[in-house]
């Protein structure tokens, strides 16, 4: 604001004749509008994405109405077409929330280790390694998941858990081992957890570092242990930002496509156990969109799913930004 005023003032001083002055203020105007135009372009871009997804999904919304949200049907046979969003929406939400449950404790451990426990010389290399984990492309996670994690889950986790915990009355069916492929919501959540771990850990580390040292030093001065400082000083101080970081990870998990497509099994039917194959919005779009006919109802249903995913992740991302923002202002 202040600079704009100074800049305008500078341009107003007649320095080397009126012609020169006009040309520089003209250059200023052009450049400012170029920048502002680019900013407006980004605004319009997001608007256009929402609009295109909504318009593309409109035929499906019109054909099925509100039932689209609650139907488990997915019938692409011509003449008897019926599409419902419930299975992919549920798969997306369940796999992401499971991933958060797996990732958050580990991410907290990493962040605590990096800010308070590790010797200084070790912090940088480990921090870089965690950031490199975030840079690995998602397709690599998918391939690693399919060829390394799926056989491991199939052999050592699914059967063991299914045979033991699956026998618990009333809730045991959620852990039952019904399919033997190893591709399941559980495996997808595991891969997602590994993918979002570095994001959450990096955010947590950054907000932990923002705590004024004098707060921590006072607590240490009273004889508190490191864990007591973390629980009594650092966590209360950074609580909101930590939740914001978790939401950021959730936003990533919701929209992840390739890693999930490789390991979730892509079965569009209602799963009863976390070891059943299922599908998510992103992976059903990736699997079916390229092979569906242009302008067909199926394509419209997939676009409608895309619109739903956009709404869900927009809400989560906006919430995470809001939570992280209020911390910065305080």
């Amino acid at each position, binding site marked *: 604001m202040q600079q704009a005023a100074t800049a305008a003032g*500078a341009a107003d001083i007649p320095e080397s004749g009126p012609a020169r002055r006009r040309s520089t203020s003209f250059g200023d105007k052009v450049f400012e509008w170029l920048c502002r135009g680019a900013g*407006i372009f980004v605004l319009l871009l997001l608007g256009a994405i929402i609009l295109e997804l909504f318009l593309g999904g409109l035929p499906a919304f019109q054909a099925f109405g509100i039932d689209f949200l609650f139907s488990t049907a997915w019938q692409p046979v011509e003449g008897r077409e019926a599409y419902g969003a419930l299975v992919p929406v549920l798969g997306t939400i369940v796999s992401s929330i499971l991933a958060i449950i797996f990732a958050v404790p580990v991410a907290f451990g990493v962040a605590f280790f990096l800010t308070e426990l590790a010797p200084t010389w070790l912090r940088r290399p480990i921090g870089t390694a965690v950031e490199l984990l975030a840079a690995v492309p998602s397709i690599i996670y998918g391939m690693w998941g399919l060829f390394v994690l799926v056989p491991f889950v199939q052999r050592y986790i699914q059967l063991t858990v299914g045979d033991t915990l699956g026998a618990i009355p009333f809730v045991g069916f959620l852990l039952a081992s019904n399919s033997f492929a190893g591709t399941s919501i559980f495996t997808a959540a595991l891969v997602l957890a590994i993918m979002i*771990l570095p994001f959450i850990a990096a955010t947590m580390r950054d907000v932990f570092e923002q705590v004024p040292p004098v707060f921590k030093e006072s607590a240490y001065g009273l004889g508190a242990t490191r864990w007591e400082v*973390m629980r009594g000083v650092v966590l209360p101080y950074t609580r909101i930002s930590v939740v914001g970081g978790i939401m950021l990870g959730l936003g990533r998990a919701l929209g992840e496509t390739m890693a999930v497509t490789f390991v979730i099994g892509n079965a569009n039917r209602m799963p009863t156990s976390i070891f059943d194959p299922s599908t998510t919005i992103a992976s059903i779009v990736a699997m079916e969109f390229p092979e569906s006919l242009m302008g067909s109802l199926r394509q419209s249903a997939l676009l409608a799913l895309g619109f739903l995913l956009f709404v869900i992740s927009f809400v989560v991302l906006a919430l995470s930004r809001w939570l992280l923002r209020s911390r910065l202002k305080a």
Partner: protein
Amino acid sequence: MSASAMAGYATPVKDIDVARALGRRRKLTDTVVRWLCLLATALGLFFLASILVTLLWRGFAALDWTVLTKEFQPTTFGDPDAPKGGLSHAIVGTLIQTGLGTLIGTPIGLLVGTYLAEYARNSPLGQAVRFVSDVLLSAPSILIGLFVYQLVVLPMGGFSGIAGAMALAIIVIPVVVRTTEDMLQLLPNTLREAVIGLGAPKWKMITLVCYRAALSGIVTGVLLAVARIAGETAPLLLTSFGNSVMSTDLGRAMASLPIAIYQQANSGFPDLIAIAWAGALLVTAGVLAINIIARFALRSRI
């Protein structure tokens, strides 16, 4: 609380045993938490190591000159005399689309970042642009693919390389915006005041001084954006789709490394899966190398 009530309580007596027990418990909790945190970090590093070791082990086993120079061939499974295929078409396609996407996205992102840092730090429009750019930064990339499909592929009547490049450009923009804004905001205001004081117009101040002062940061942002889109798969699946022959025609479907990996890894034939691992090694090595270079470029400056 009155003085008489206070006097009713005995003065605290230090009970050595209780204090010792409490101290032991606190120390134990602290030690347990420390070991758990160490374990969590080890777990994170173990995953990174596992991914890298798997990639190196299975990628190098399949990586040879054929992979780099030949185009796709059907499986040689059960027919040892058939010609072996490679990934040259995908490497060329990835280079074209990544390069084009970066070329389109970088100027736009640079201008938006400049707008946010130099013109609209606190204006409502600036806040809105910043928010939207942050949403785009984390928006599911497959939705960007769907958007470009609706906008470009549908009217053009088919998948095309240019649609892939556009989808990648949309992913580049918010990455460049973020780093450009951050880097420009790090510059001291005295620098700007000095330039303005010499009588230079604002646009010259920005282009000739601010950009130059923030150059390494901006370059880092562009490098990170390149690293991000080089491994991007989902949006390309809906825009450039992939191709099994070499094609440099931007108006037609174009191959790319991530798509080739995806298709060959899911083919079920051991020889094609081996080629997919070689491709995965190439992509990851490239992406991580760019990341490390970007980090060093930034560190040497600060």
